[in-house]
């Protein structure tokens, strides 16, 4: 049986297959309206994440399936001290597939070891969030028409942002991808990512704290939130925060065909005046996230046409 715990659990071919299937669903959603009739998705959310949970639930409902689950640890048996392993063994007989969100890193891995149904990691602490990566990729692929030969700017908190790390790990598998990493010095990408992924893979990248300067080069700008609590002192925060806020004046330096992505929730790092710019696609991105989750659920259940995971279903 296949599970999805880390974005890199999927080979490049499997990843491309799921993204393409997501695009097919996007074009003809009605064709997939009943493919999951009679199937159930369990959403096991040990910490609240409304958007991710609803995105999973919408994905299953769109395909005619049903959903059940809990949305915080307080309302689950975890509050009584039940282990993840025991919970998943029970849920395995209630549902056909599950999506798990947990504050502790590796909890979905534990679940996958004891589960009789496919487990999708819907975020485990600061560790992995593979369906966010799939969402980012389907957005880039759909809007740019490709995943290779791109200059991708990543801006904000690159040190703690797991979505940034996962996206870099996924994008380096494609050819001629260049990164512009825009952040304050304190929030640059972690050393292991620089050495083991970018340097080791001879990937073209630059690290800078100037967003405007590199704006004209970018095909994609991936914005993340710079949190006040990440700074060592208030002075630095005040000095630097505006450099990483995207507004209309900075957008004028960007190419006509450039897209701004954001994993959401946005706080103030993208000024609301940017929302009406057609290049701001973060709400569209959330919509695409549903299609790619549909493609993933379908494939893991072995209900896709090609049955790519057939050996494991």
């Amino acid at each position, binding site marked *: 049986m296949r599970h999805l715990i880390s974005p890199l659990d999927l080979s490049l071919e499997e990843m491309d297959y799921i993204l393409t299937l997501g695009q097919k669903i996007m074009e003809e959603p009605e064709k997939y309206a009943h493919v999951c009739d009679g199937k159930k998705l369990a959403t096991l959310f040990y910490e609240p994440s409304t958007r991710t949970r609803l995105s999973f639930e919408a994905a299953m409902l769109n395909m005619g399936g049903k959903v059940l689950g809990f949305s915080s640890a307080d309302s689950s048996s975890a509050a009584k001290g039940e282990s993840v392993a025991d919970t998943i063994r029970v849920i395995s007989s209630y549902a056909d597939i599950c999506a798990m969100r947990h504050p502790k890193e590796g909890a979905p891995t534990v679940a996958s070891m004891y589960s009789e149904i496919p487990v999708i990691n819907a975020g485990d*602490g600061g560790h992995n969030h593979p369906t966010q990566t799939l969402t980012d990729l389907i957005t880039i692929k759909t809007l740019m028409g490709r995943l290779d030969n791109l200059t991708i700017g990543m801006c904000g908190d690159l040190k703690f942002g797991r979505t940034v790390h996962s996206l870099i790990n996924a994008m380096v598998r494609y050819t001629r991808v260049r990164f512009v990493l825009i952040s304050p010095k304190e929030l640059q990408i972690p050393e292991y990512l620089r050495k083991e992924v970018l340097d080791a893979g001879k990937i073209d990248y630059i690290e800078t704290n100037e967003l405007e300067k590199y704006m004209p080069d970018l095909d994609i700008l991936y914005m993340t939130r710079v949190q006040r609590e990440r700074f060592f002192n208030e002075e630095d925060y005040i000095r630097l925060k505006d450099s990483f806020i995207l507004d209309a004046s900075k957008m004028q330096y960007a190419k006509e065909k450039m897209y701004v992505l954001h994993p959401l929730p946005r706080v103030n790092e993208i000024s609301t005046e940017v929302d009406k710019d057609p290049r701001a696609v973060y709400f569209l991105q959330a919509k695409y996230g549903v299609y790619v989750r549909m493609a993933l659920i379908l494939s893991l259940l072995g209900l896709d046409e090609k049955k790519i995971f057939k050996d494991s279903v």
Partner: protein
Amino acid sequence: MLNIGGLNEGVVIDHIQAGGAMKIYEYLNLEKLDVSVAIIKNARSNKMGKKDIIKIEGPFNLDLTVLGVLDHKITVNVIKDNEIVKKQQLELPERVTGIIKCKNPRCITSIEQELPHTFKLTDRENRIYRCIYCESKFKGK
């Protein structure tokens, strides 16, 4: 040098990085063995400057190959009739359970105590193991 009597039969775990003997003693659960154990700390060594040595007396069954995970410089000599009869080769197994503890406070093992602490070898050349749950790194000495 401090003189500890030779072994007639047993095992000498040598070339332990100075200060590491107690850790090895704990990992091997030697306190549970009803045999003589000598721990020599900070012995002079031409190669290492200072080193620790553990001598264990008598025949016993212990898997010592995993010591390579903790400290790759360690050598293990099996003694019989006052002679070294075997120099045990240390290995880096693909997976180890119960040898390394995950210290990441955000790891699921930090709240679910009954989970086995399992690490897998991800980089043989640099002897790097990672927790199978949270992927935290462990590098032996």
